[in-house]
């Protein structure tokens, strides 16, 4: 496969999309981990929901 004289434009476009999608995925995954860790900390310090269920219970 040859990309012709404008190969750099094509490769940059695909690389940029891959990078932004990877950043989005990583940001959402890290955010999930961070919020769950803070919820665990809060529950470990004795603060619990009125329902009595764990705030990190996703099932």
């Amino acid at each position, binding site marked *: 496969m040859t990309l012709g004289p404008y190969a750099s*434009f094509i490769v940059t*476009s*695909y690389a940029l999309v891959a990078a*932004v999608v990877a950043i989005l*995925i990583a940001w*959402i995954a890290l955010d999930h981990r961070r919020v769950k860790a803070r919820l665990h900390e*809060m529950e470990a310090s004795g*603060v619990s929901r009125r329902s009595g269920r764990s705030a990190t219970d996703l*099932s």
Partner: protein
Amino acid sequence: MSLSELANPTRFLSLTTRILPWLAGLTAILLAIGLYQSVQAPDDYQQGATVKIMFIHVPNAWLSMFVWGVMSLASLGTLVWRHPLADVAAKAAAPIGAAFTFLALVTGSLWGRPMWGTYWEWDARLTSVLILFLMYLGLIALWRAVEDPSRAARAAAVLTLVGAINIPIIKFSVDWWNTLHQPASVMKMGGSSLDRAFLIPLLVMAVAFSLLFITLHLAAMRNEILRRRLRALQMLQASKPVALPQ
């Protein structure tokens, strides 16, 4: 499970936890197929290999408008039906929509340079998409600036619905004004003017990016629900009486 049952955040979390791995897997498979077809697609007789940029530019451009549509529906849910997950859905969608709009702008610019001879032109289509991107950033800033989520949700919902006026302007800008951007070639009266060799990879990529949005959106909504639980616990902790030293 009905839509009203999903209004319960706990049930919503349970459902998303079960379906997210399947959605992520399906998205990865479709993206792989779409990318393979994009690489294998023939060169265009006029544009040469630069036509390959279309397979990523067009899905991102479609999603930039679709996500605002989702946020507009969610805003109606906030203002009219007061659905408990509506503002969660709108808030979670905004950064993802902003990312798709950014990619549509940049890939369009990188496609425009070899085809039009310029990275940017202040024509109706390009300018209206840039305004959409700025509106996404404005909404994100608004949500961050107002501490109370319910107050922020109402203000953001009004702004989202006002901003929805821009969506038909983007869509029809190429018909209403004389623009450098080409008119619609896939979704138009009388059917697509694209050859099947380009249309099929484009549609596969469009479905793959749509699934990517659904997956990321559900995951971001799950984070937002957990963040609100954290806020509720922090407020509960702050309201507890503190024993003062004698």
